């Protein structure tokens, strides 16, 4: 077999001109790919060997590399759109184009923020919600991760877990609120369970997807070294599926905010979801807008945190991704 592939490599005209037809037939593909120098794109290897002049219509590929955009420009563009929105809001309110009962002015929202910070409620509320959301995402995300890996790795796992999870996925978790209240009461347990359920489902779906997309060759190679069971899962499968898992974490965290609003409407005395309820109850539009801003900032914080984790946990990724 190897002899055949080597021959093909040395017959560049054929391979280069019709890469599609040659790359297709079955088992030969992997072997071709593993040959040093042949590369995933036959053309790359060819041009290096024979020189660009030998073949018409081919060129040396552009080096993608890890070019970085100028940080200042990047940051400027990044904050540009939110900044424009802020300016439009500020201008609209101060010129009287936006009536205060439709959207509170930035100044009154700032006052509300100052008030909330001065009474210590802001920190208290954020802490209470962070605790609930953190625990919920930890428990729910953990369960989703376990089930996703199980369903992704083993056929039996998939048969056992996937149908139920797909059913769960179709159930809006807000529909479970009355049921959960009768099971868990209206205390902390209810709130954490609700958030856990809301977080488990996206975590499962993305982990499953990520694990299914793990390179078979890598898994086979690891098996060849004798990795089995949890060592295979922790050492190879989960790191390979990490991009999907971190995406799942992003979504789970955002969904947990929805869960927080639903959970803290019932029987809470603190929390940012409770703040929404309070603002509605007391007809304070400034606080309603403040809540939206808090959520927006939390979205940024979550994103930044996950980006940091991505950079730390997947240092190789910068050299693999297209951009």
């Amino acid at each position, binding site marked *: 077999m190897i002899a055949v592939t080597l021959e093909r490599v040395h017959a560049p005209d054929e391979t280069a001109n019709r890469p599609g037809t040659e790359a297709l037939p079955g088992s030969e593909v992997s072997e071709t790919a593993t040959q040093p120098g042949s590369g995933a794109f036959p053309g790359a290897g060819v041009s290096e060997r024979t020189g660009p002049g030998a073949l018409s219509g081919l060129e040396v590929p552009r080096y993608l590399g890890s070019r970085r955009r100028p940080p200042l420009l990047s940051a400027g563009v990044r904050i540009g759109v939110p900044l424009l929105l802020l300016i439009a809001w500020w201008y609209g309110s101060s010129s009287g184009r936006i009536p205060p*009962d*439709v959207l509170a002015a930035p100044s009154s929202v700032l006052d*509300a923020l100052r*008030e*909330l910070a*001065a*009474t210590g*409620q802001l920190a208290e509320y954020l802490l209470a919600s962070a*605790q609930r959301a*953190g*625990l919920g995402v*930890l*428990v729910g995300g*953990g369960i989703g991760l376990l089930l996703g890996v199980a369903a992704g790795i083993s056929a039996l796992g998939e048969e056992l877990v996937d149908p139920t999870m797909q059913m769960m996925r179709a159930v809006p978790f807000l529909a479970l609120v*009355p049921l959960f*209240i*009768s099971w868990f*009461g*209206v*205390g*902390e*347990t209810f709130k*954490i369970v609700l958030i856990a359920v809301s977080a488990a489902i996206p975590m499962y779906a993305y982990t499953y997807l990520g694990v299914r997309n793990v390179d078979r060759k890598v898994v086979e190679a690891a098996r060849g070294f004798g990795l089995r069971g949890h*060592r295979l899962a*922790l*050492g190879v499968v*989960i790191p390979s599926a990490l991009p999907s898992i971190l995406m799942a974490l992003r979504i789970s965290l955002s969904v947990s905010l929805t869960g927080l609003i639903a959970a803290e*409407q*019932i*029987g*809470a*005395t603190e929390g940012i979801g*409770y*703040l929404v*309820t*309070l*603002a*509605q*109850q*007391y*007809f*304070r539009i400034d*606080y309603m807008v403040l809540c939206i801003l808090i959520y927006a900032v939390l979205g940024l914080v979550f994103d930044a945190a996950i980006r940091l984790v991505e950079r730390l*946990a997947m240092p190789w990724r910068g050299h693999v991704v297209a951009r």
Partner: protein
Amino acid sequence: MRVAVAILAISLAGLTAACGTSSAAGGGSSSSGGTGAVLKLQDPGNAGPLAYAKREGILEKRLKAVGASVEWGGSYASFTAAIDAVHSGSVNVLAGAISPAVGYLANSPDIKIFSVTDPITDPAAPQTDGLVVWPDSPIKSVKDLAGKQVAVNKGGKGEYLLLLALEKAGVPVDQVKRVYLNPDQGASAFATRKVDAWWAIVRAYPEVVAKGARVIVHGRDLNDQDLTIAAARDELLDKHPEAVRVYLDVLRELTEEAKKTPEKFENVFLDQGPTAVTGARLAQDIATARYANIPRYVTKDDGVNIEQVAGLFRKYGVLSGAIDPADVLFDLKAVAGSPSAAASR
């Protein structure tokens, strides 16, 4: 691998923390040894007799004398919002009005009304509700409501008063479209003119009047029998009427005090933030508190009020079942009249 171990360790730590906090904050599930009664109340907010009682620990002190205790729970916007908590037993004493209470009782007869507050009749007292329209609205009287959309809170005071007003004006109820919205939703629907009129109640009413709304009719202009009530779960009333009595006593005393010095009962916990009231809102609240009536024990005569509210709701399909007043009223005065009688039970 190390990362995985770290994650595992963190999650385990988190789980133990979860158990810690849920038992501390949830507390409601652990009744105090089963010997004494536990009054489970909703969060009283930042104003009123109960907020004051919570801050000063008055209920705790007074209930201790009868071997009972109090547990302050979460916050609920209204009686209707608290229904799930009452079902699950997380709240066992709560205040409200007859209208939402009959709605609850029609489905689950596990609470009883033990106290009512007579309606305010003093014409000098500030109004607390009203059917509002915008000043440029063609609606000048209740009769003009035919063919219009009116926002009311479902099965609550707003819907009750609207039905009552329509009946009095001789407008067929099916000619007016009732749009069911909670007070906060009603406020935005009315502000953006998605509904033609709105029966604004409680806190929403002074807000919308301050924004320039015109009032067509007040609840006080009608034969409003939808009294303010206090209710408790059956098991609490049956086993520990003396504890409920202490609650009512404290509420009565503090309401009396709040009539004299209403300022003391505003902004009880915080004078800043969303729950704090200032300026015109504070003045309004103080004026209302001055005219408040004192809650009293229910008597047999209160059955008439319940019958009237439930009957009106039943007539127009808001309620499906009938309510027998005898089943839902609890004569606390007779049962817990003397402390010794209560103790012997």
